[in-house]
């Protein structure tokens, strides 16, 4: 059973639950107390000792159900085969009897696997598959591309070679038996395939997810396929969570220069009130204030979408965000984003300002006329756009004023540095007034950019 527990811990890690050695020891001690008899209690015990957040509890619960239901599908499967056999035999009883007799007679001539299949001993077959899985180190499976090789390994370990030889041999001597064996072999293949798929689900989930996320992180946001959008949103949420964890620590800093009289007196009471140790007043750090201006025209729209999602998922870190979207003209979109789901919000924004040709000059002018007061000396202004203004007046003078009013002015450009300044790109002209200009085409670059912005407030 200890072996099984270890396998379960591995499966739990595969499901994304971080199980440290100390926690696995706790779990074992707890299991030793409650025993294995009551499955519900066992499940609760694992949920209590291993999972430390609600997400982990959900993942572990699913993993537990999958793991401990493992032997059952195989049995059902075998049962299925058997009932199939029976129904067939019901239609054709004489042939079945004949086959049985022939099987009985030929038993000495076929290998152990064939005998096992013929006898339809379900538990023996399950055990054989479990043993062969162990021999083929099935728990090491990580990627779906490995399914074929593990199936082959397991079947090899079960002695499929001998079975094939038997079938070949019997084809001439006893065609009915050969056919039965062939059918049993197909059934066995199916069962093993199921076992491998289940193992992949158990042990390989996290690895596969990591691989997929790694690819997604480095894919250009503007060109991902529609079916990946949902995955990308999930990834962006993950990034947001990471940033939250990193930056939502208490914001306190010692402020030298202002004595905290009460704490100083208390701390120095031991010396009769003579202030050997001084206590200083502390100051809460500023929370980042962000004003985001996002181009939502054409190719940049998708990047803006993800950027806005990320910025608005950072509540614990950034509590003051005002977002604006523009292509031909500019509107405030903070409320739309706060009150709708990301998909709906983006649709609404696009219907209001999207799909025009971008006019940076006009949009900046809109901003200056209506919302310039949103910028304070603590604000970071982020402009997301490709700076392609269709040869209209770029109004870099407004950007200069924005830069002067704000703490920092950051420009994120989804285009590669190579093409900045070519064609109608006004990037070099805008860049002179920005504190930072960075390329921002992939999720990874997006994460770094936002992380750096938040870090300047720490």
């Amino acid at each position, binding site marked *: 059973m200890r072996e099984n527990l270890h396998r379960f811990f591995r499966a739990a890690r595969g499901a994304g639950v*971080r199980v440290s050695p100390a*926690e696995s020891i*706790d779990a074992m001690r707890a299991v030793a107390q409650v025993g294995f008899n009551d499955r519900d209690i066992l499940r609760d015990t694992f949920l*209590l000792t291993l999972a430390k957040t609600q997400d982990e509890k959900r993942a572990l619960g699913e993993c537990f159900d999958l793991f401990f239901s493992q032997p059952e599908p195989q049995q059902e499967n075998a049962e299925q085969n058997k009932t199939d056999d029976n129904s067939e035999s019901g239609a054709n009883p004489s042939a079945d009897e004949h086959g049985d007799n022939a099987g009985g007679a030929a038993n000495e001539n076929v290998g152990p696997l064939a005998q096992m299949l013929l006898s339809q001993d379900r538990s023996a077959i399950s055990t054989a598959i479990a043993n062969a899985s162990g021999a083929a180190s099935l728990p090491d499976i990580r990627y779906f591309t490995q399914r074929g090789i593990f199936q082959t390994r397991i079947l090899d370990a079960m002695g499929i070679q001998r079975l094939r030889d038997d079938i070949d041999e019997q084809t001439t001597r006893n065609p009915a038996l050969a056919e039965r064996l062939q059918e049993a072999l197909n059934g066995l293949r199916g069962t093993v395939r199921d076992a491998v798929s289940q193992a992949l689900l158990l042990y390989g989930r996290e690895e596969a997810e990591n691989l997929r996320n790694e690819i997604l992180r480095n894919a250009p946001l503007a060109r991902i396929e529609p079916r990946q959008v949902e995955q990308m949103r999930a990834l962006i949420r993950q990034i947001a969570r990471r940033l939250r964890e990193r930056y939502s620590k208490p914001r306190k800093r010692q402020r030298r220069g202002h004595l905290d009289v009460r704490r100083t007196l208390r701390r120095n*009471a*031991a010396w*009769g009130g003579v202030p050997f140790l001084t206590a200083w007043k502390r100051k809460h750090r500023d929370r980042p204030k962000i004003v985001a201006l996002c181009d939502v025209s054409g190719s940049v729209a998708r990047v803006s979408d993800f950027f806005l999602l990320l910025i608005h998922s950072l509540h614990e870190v950034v509590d003051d965000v005002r977002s604006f979207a523009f292509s031909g003209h500019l509107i405030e979109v903070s409320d739309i984003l706060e009150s709708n789901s990301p998909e709906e919000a983006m649709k609404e924004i696009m219907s209001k300002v999207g799909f025009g040709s971008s006019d940076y000059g006009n949009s900046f002018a809109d901003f200056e006329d209506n919302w310039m007061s949103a910028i304070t000396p603590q604000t970071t202004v982020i402009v997301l756009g490709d700076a392609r203004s269709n040869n209209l007046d770029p109004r870099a003078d407004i950007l200069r004023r924005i830069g002067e009013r704000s703490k920092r002015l950051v420009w994120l450009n989804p285009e590669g540095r190579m093409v900045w300044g070519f064609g109608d790109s006004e990037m070099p002209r805008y860049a002179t007034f920005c504190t930072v200009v960075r390329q921002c085409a992939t999720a990874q670059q997006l994460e770094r950019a936002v992380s750096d912005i938040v870090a300047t407030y720490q």
Partner: protein
Amino acid sequence: MADTRPTASIEAVESGLAAQGYIASRQIATAVYLSQQIEKPILVEGPAGVGKTELAKAIAAWRGMKMIRLQCYEGLDEAKALYEWKYAKQLLYTQILKDKLGEVLGGAQSLAAALDQLHTFGDVFFSKEFVEPRPLLQALEQPAGCVLLIDEIDKSDAEFESLLLEILSDFQVTIPELGTVSAVAPPTVILTSNSERDLGDALKRRCLHLHIGFPEQKLEERIVESRVPGISQTLRKQMVGFIHEIRSLDLKKLPSVSEAIDWARVLVLLQASELDHEIVKDTLNVLLKYEADIEAATPQISSFIAKASRQGVFS
């Protein structure tokens, strides 16, 4: 025989807590049982008002132990949680003992001899006598053990979490001047958190993690029954069904168990025999704590009552 024992003990925990008026789900009972068996603290998370603090009180009452409570808040530090020196007493004693000093050192000829003589008296002023034990230290010093409730740990600073690590894993604290104080009898430690911030991994690793959510309908009916005995069965079913419907709405603050109990008391006070639109509308402010929530729920009242009553008929 050995295998049936844990189930029986978990049921014993359940009935023990029930005797104190705390109706525990199987998972809660398992957590309490395990925390006693493998001597681990329980970290309880969940929305406000589902009985996290109540759990600690019930355990203390059930096992007849003292409960020591440490309420966490921002800025809580060692001096308020662990121990403090009784500075005033130390000062007073030095003043009083000044006269005695001459007698003690009377025979000494030189400064070195006087010092030697002083050393023989030891660290009188930094001894147990002058330590003011705060909740954590008190909990360790209870000879019969106790229930230590560290409430709303998520409100404290991250540094305070680190302070707790030693006491949580080994049931001991280290005072620099005195050495390590170990627990006389390991206390049962319950930590509660409203998930206002994520707790550190180090803290979570040392605890059993129990999440108490909103209870199922049957369980909640039992809870209301045990807390508000005067309420009739039909009304109880209706009101719990109604609350479950309310929880399906998208509200700022969902009504939790404590609000359910309050509402049951109010309904009993108003001598309502069953829910109707008027009485629900008048008492909705017991359940919902935001104006916007009440506005969102008001149009639904009639349909919710109808649904809740229908459930009552069939179950």
